[in-house]
C-alpha cells in the first residue's frame, strides 16, 4: 500500500471539504473493496477520508412510504433490521446473501453502490425496487445512477448519504451466486408496487439493467408462467471463467422466474 494522509471527519461538511481540498482524495467506508485495491497498489490516493465517525450517515428509518438507509449502514445491519425485514424482506435477504459475515459487518450500502461492481447485489436491489440515491448535492433515481461497469453518476467529490427505497406490494431477489465469493453471477430482483412492475438484473451485464419485456408480461399476469417464453439475448452480457454470456442469459430467465414465484 502506498502511504496516504488519513482523515476521520465528524460531519458531512467536514468530509466534503476534506475531499475537495485533497490532491487526490478517496472516501473509505467499510473498506471491503477499497483496502484490497490499495493493497494491490491499484490506486494511489493522497488522502483517505473515513466516513465512519459521521453519525448522520448511519441507520435505518421510515419516511412516508419509504425506508431510508444511511450510506454507512452495514450489510449486516440491513439484513438484521426489523423494519426492513417487515416492510421489504427481499432487501433483507439480498443483504444477508452478500459475501460472508465479516464482509457484512464492515461493508456498507453506500460503498457498494458507489463502487458499482457489475456482480454486486445492491445495484439489482436499488433498480429493482425503484430506489432513490441521496447525496450531499442532490437526489438521483437508481435508474440513472448506475451508468456502466464500475461507473456511476456521482461526481468526483460527491458523497452518497442515503438510499430511499419505496415499500413495494411484493418483491423478491433470486441470485445464482459465485460459490467462492457469493457475488452474483446473475441476480434478479422483481417487485410490484406503486411504480408498477420492475425486473432488474445484476451480475449478467456490465451494469445492472431492466428487462422491460418481462415487466410488461408481469404487469398483466404476475406469475412465473407469464415470463416462461421470454429470452434475454446473450449479446453484450459478461463472459468469464465463471459463466459464459449464453449461460448468464439462460440464468436471467431462471432467476427471474424464481424471484416471481418467491414474491408470490
Amino acid at each position, binding site marked *: *500500500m*502506498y*502511504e*496516504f*494522509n*488519513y482523515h*476521520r471527519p465528524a460531519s458531512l461538511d467536514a468530509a466534503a471539504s476534506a475531499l475537495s481540498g485533497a490532491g487526490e482524495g478517496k472516501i*473509505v467506508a467499510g*473498506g*471491503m473493496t477499497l*483496502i*484490497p485495491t*490499495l*493493497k494491490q497498489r491499484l490506486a494511489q490516493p493522497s488522502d*483517505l477520508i*473515513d466516513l*465512519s465517525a459521521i453519525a448522520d450517515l448511519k441507520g435505518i428509518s421510515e419516511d412516508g412510504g419509504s425506508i431510508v438507509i444511511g450510506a454507512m449502514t452495514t450489510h*449486516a445491519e440491513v439484513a438484521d433490521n426489523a423494519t426492513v425485514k417487515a416492510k421489504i424482506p427481499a432487501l433483507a435477504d439480498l443483504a444477508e446473501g452478500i*459475501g*460472508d*459475515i*465479516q*464482509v457484512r*459487518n*464492515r461493508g456498507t450500502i453506500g460503498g457498494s453502490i458507489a463502487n458499482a461492481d457489475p456482480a454486486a447485489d445492491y445495484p439489482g436491489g436499488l433498480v429493482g425496487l425503484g430506489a432513490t440515491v441521496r447525496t450531499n448535492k442532490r437526489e438521483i433515481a437508481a435508474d440513472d445512477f448506475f451508468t456502466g461497469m464500475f461507473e456511476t453518476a456521482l461526481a468526483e467529490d460527491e458523497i452518497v448519504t442515503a438510499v430511499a427505497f419505496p415499500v413495494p406490494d411484493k418483491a423478491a431477489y433470486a441470485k445464482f451466486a459465485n460459490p*467462492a*465469493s*457469493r457475488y452474483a453471477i446473475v441476480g434478479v430482483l422483481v417487485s410490484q408496487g406503486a411504480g408498477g412492475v420492475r425486473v432488474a438484473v445484476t451480475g449478467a451485464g456490465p451494469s445492472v439493467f431492466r428487462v422491460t419485456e418481462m415487466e410488461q408480461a408481469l404487469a398483466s399476469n404476475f406469475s412465473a408462467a407469464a415470463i416462461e417464453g421470454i429470452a434475454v439475448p446473450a449479446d453484450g452480457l459478461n463472459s468469464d471463467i465463471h459463466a459464459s454470456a449464453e449461460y448468464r442469459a439462460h440464468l436471467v430467465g431462471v432467476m427471474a422466474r424464481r424471484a416471481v414465484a418467491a414474491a408470490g
Partner: protein
Amino acid sequence: MPSVTMTVNGQQVTRDVEGRTLLTDFLRQDLALTGTHVGCDTSQCGACVVHVDGKSVKACTMLAVQAEGAEVTTIEGLAQNGELHPMQAAFKEHHGLQCGFCTPGMVMSAVDLVNTKGEASETEIRDWLEGNICRCTGYHNIVKAIQAGAKAMRS
C-alpha cells in the same frame, strides 16, 4: 505519523502508526499478538478474524487507524485466568483442527456466531463459516466443535 488508541483484550494501547498499517500488522508486529494469522491477505480465508466492538471482522482488510476508540478482541483475549474459553476447549475436545492455521479465525467467528444468534443449526453454522477457509479438516469436526462450544457457552 497518526497516533491510534484502542482497547485490545481489555488493555488500552496507544501507538504511532502509518495510516496504511493494517490491523493485522498492528496486532502482530506492534503488539506481538501473533495469534491472529494472515493466510491469504486478500479478504478470503478468515485466518485473521478478530472482534471489533463485538463483531467479527477480517483484520487484514481494516486499517489500524479505523479501529480508533474500538474494543478489539483477539484469540489471545479469550482465555480467562489460564482457563480456555469454552469454544477453545470444544475445538480441543472435538479435534476441530489439524494444522491449526485457520483455528484462531474459526474460533473468533464461532464466538461471534453464538453471541449474535445464540442457538444455531448445523446449516447456520456452515453458512456462518462462509468466510473461514480450512484446508485440512473438511470442516466436519469444526462444526461439531462449534455445536459443543455453543452449548458450553450458554450453560
